[in-house]
């Protein structure tokens, strides 16, 4: 391949494109515009919800475009990858230049950069040159870290400079963005985010993942000794608190009372107080209340594809067909919610598989296919959903379960580092702009002629004010206030 000195090849074109601010602006605009979609269309609902809301056609279109989980879709993530590439390539392109400006001391002061500029202030002073020079030197060195005095034929030039290194601030900001993205990737590759409900007094070591709905086994067990909720006088909740114990090999290793905003952290896993609820496992309590009418359930065994029907009632456990374990309906809720979403009337149950931990099953009466999402071995749905009138009266002795959010995110420290760097970088960039001042003093008989000038990398108007203040301190006439 012939080497071209102008390197106008397609690769170079791509490189130029990826180092351009134009692309940055396009990416920002597209990211902002597409992000709006995900706020107009609620994310991560069940297919039924979408189907009902948008109809079959749009359901299919949106589904194909991954609109229902768009922030995790390939195309949205690709935009973020492009942004990262843009930042990295742009920095590679520009950093050497900025570095040179910052660290090349010799090119520091050039009087030509200041002469004959519109903002310059000139005046005559009664003070002779020497006196003027020492006042000016003292003033300049007070605010400017670097000063330099250069004699000229008829007088002297004084240069002052500060915060030259702040030109590197944007590189801190830009690398912080890359750190955020890396941290997010680490989190999604090596972390998890799940939830579990533990009735008081019970122990679990399994959680359900939010993303896939799958069961995840923890390297330790969590026992909930006690759950408590307290209320203010006006009825709003004051505090949710769970007494948790972490067990490793059935040994208690840590005990902590957690509340919202104060989680338990152990072995890189964080356990947060997220929700709570009441349960009735107590059969004796159930006998005191009128027995609900029978509820007809459909049970489909995933592996064999067989469907069975089962009549049951709340609080009455039964064996699942094909030895799939046990199931019991625990309660009926007129306004149930699932992962923060209101789903209306629902029956809740506990499924205890042949092996493994019991799982809580939610059966909304409105969405027959809801339990499919759980991707369990048994898919349960309610065939006869007229359970409203049969809702059991709440019993006196309430038992609570605590709802815990269990997460692990090894990327969080990378993200936090990014946060700190971003703030530092923005501060340096915005408020510590590189400034230079220049004062030239020449003898005019017994008097001296003074020129004051200045440049700033950012916020030039403020620099002009500083030049004016400096010249007034040196004896120039004050500016008229309008």
């Amino acid at each position, binding site marked *: 391949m012939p080497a071209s000195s102008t390197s106008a090849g397609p690769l170079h074109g791509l490189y130029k494109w990826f180092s351009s601010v134009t692309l940055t602006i396009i990416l920002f605009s597209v990211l902002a515009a597409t992000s709006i979609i995900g706020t107009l269309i609620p994310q991560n609902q069940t297919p039924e919800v979408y189907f009902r809301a948008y109809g079959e056609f749009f359901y299919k279109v949106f589904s194909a475009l991954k609109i229902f989980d768009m922030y995790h879709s390939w195309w949205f993530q690709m935009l973020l990858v492009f942004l990262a590439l843009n930042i990295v390539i742009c920095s590679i392109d520009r950093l050497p230049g900025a570095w040179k400006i910052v660290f090349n001391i010799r090119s520091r002061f050039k009087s030509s950069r200041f002469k004959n500029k519109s903002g310059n202030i000139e005046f005559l002073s009664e003070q002779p040159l020497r006196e003027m020079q020492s006042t000016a030197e003292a003033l300049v060195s007070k605010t400017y870290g670097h000063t330099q005095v250069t004699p000229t034929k008829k007088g002297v030039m004084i240069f002052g400079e500060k915060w030259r290194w702040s030109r590197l601030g944007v590189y801190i900001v830009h690398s912080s963005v890359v750190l955020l993205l890396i941290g997010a990737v680490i989190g999604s590759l090596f972390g998890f985010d799940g939830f579990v409900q533990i009735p008081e007094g019970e122990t679990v070591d399994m959680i359900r993942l939010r993303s896939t709905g799958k069961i995840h086994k923890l390297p330790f067990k969590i026992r909930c000794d006690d759950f408590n909720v307290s209320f203010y006088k006006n009825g709003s909740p004051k505090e949710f608190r769970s007494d948790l114990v972490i067990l490793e090999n059935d040994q208690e290793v840590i005990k902590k009372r957690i509340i919202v*905003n104060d989680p338990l952290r152990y072995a890189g896993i964080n356990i947060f107080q997220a929700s709570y609820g009441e349960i009735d496992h107590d059969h004796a309590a159930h006998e005191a209340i009128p027995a609900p009418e029978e509820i007809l359930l459909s049970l489909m065994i995933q592996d064999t594809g067989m469907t069975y029907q089962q009549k049951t009632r709340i609080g009455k456990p039964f064996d699942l067909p094909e030895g799939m374990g046990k199931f019991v309906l625990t309660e009926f809720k007129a306004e149930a919610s699932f992962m923060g979403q209101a789903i209306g009337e629902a029956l809740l149950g506990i499924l205890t598989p042949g092996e493994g931990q019991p799982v809580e099953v939610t059966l909304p009466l409105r969405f027959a296919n809801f339990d499919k999402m759980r991707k369990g071995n048994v898919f349960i749905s309610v065939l006869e959903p007229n359970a409203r009138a049969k809702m059991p009266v709440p019993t006196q002795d309430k038992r609570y379960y605590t709802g815990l959010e269990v997460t692990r995110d090894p990327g969080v420290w990378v993200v936090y580092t990014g946060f700190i760097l971003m703030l530092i970088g923005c501060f340096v960039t915005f408020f510590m702009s590189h400034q230079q001042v220049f004062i030239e003093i020449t003898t005019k008989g017994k008097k001296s002629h003074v020129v004051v000038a200045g440049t700033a990398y950012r916020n030039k108007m403020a620099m002009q004010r500083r030049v004016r203040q400096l010249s007034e301190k040196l004896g120039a006439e004050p500016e008229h206030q309008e």
Partner: protein
Amino acid sequence: MTSSNLLSIITFVYGLSAFTYLFAWIFKKPDVARLGTWTAIIGFAGNTAGIILRWIESYRLGIGHAPLSNLYESLVFFAFTLALIYLIIEFRYRNRIIGAFIMPLVFLAMAYASLSPNISDRIQPLIPALKSNWLIAHVIACFVGYAAFAVAFGLSIMYLVKQTEAVETGGGWLDLLPKKQALDELNHQMIMFGFIFLTAGIITGAVWANSAWGRYWGWDPKETWSLITWFVYATLLHARLMRGWYGKRIAYLSIIGFAAVIFTYFGVNYLPGLHSYGSV
């Protein structure tokens, strides 16, 4: 007097101030604007007192917390910050007519807080999720940022008004406005100021979310809209680096940015299917 009574009165003081500034500008009587300044200072003092009083009242009720926990309190704090930033600008740049474009915003924020039937001015106890110092940092950072963006919005409108000068000969009341270049620079400065606080607001919000729910980012509509706002202002900052993106275009972007701020704050509540502010 209760804090909410005091703050309702302050609403009218701010209204008077806004009216005076506008009058001074439209009828070309810069001296009248002096009155605007004094009423603005009185309004600001009362606003400050109202916030402190409310804080004390919450302790008297036995549910003491910083008055930054609901829509009403955040609007009052927003008006406070906006008035403060404006007064600093007025003293620094010695131009009172800017007040004609900023004080009406202060008045609107307070009027909305005090008069809207949808906004309760009752002092309420904190629900568990809101009991966090990160939340206080979060609210302060966000609202300082929003206030700076509101100032930038006012300056952008001024710029666009001033822009018509070339067409309309003789200038007249446009003469009272600061020079275009000064408006442009001040606009940019306010946006930088707002950007750093919005960034801090998003970051403290993320840290709070991580301490309360175990994830620093969840693409919830409020979070997403604050990110959209952030993208708009990041676009503006970078657009300024390109040739030709000065003045008018920056003013338009600044207005779009403020629209995004408003939507992040109010509009999000009208979006379909989401959980409310701070629910568990």
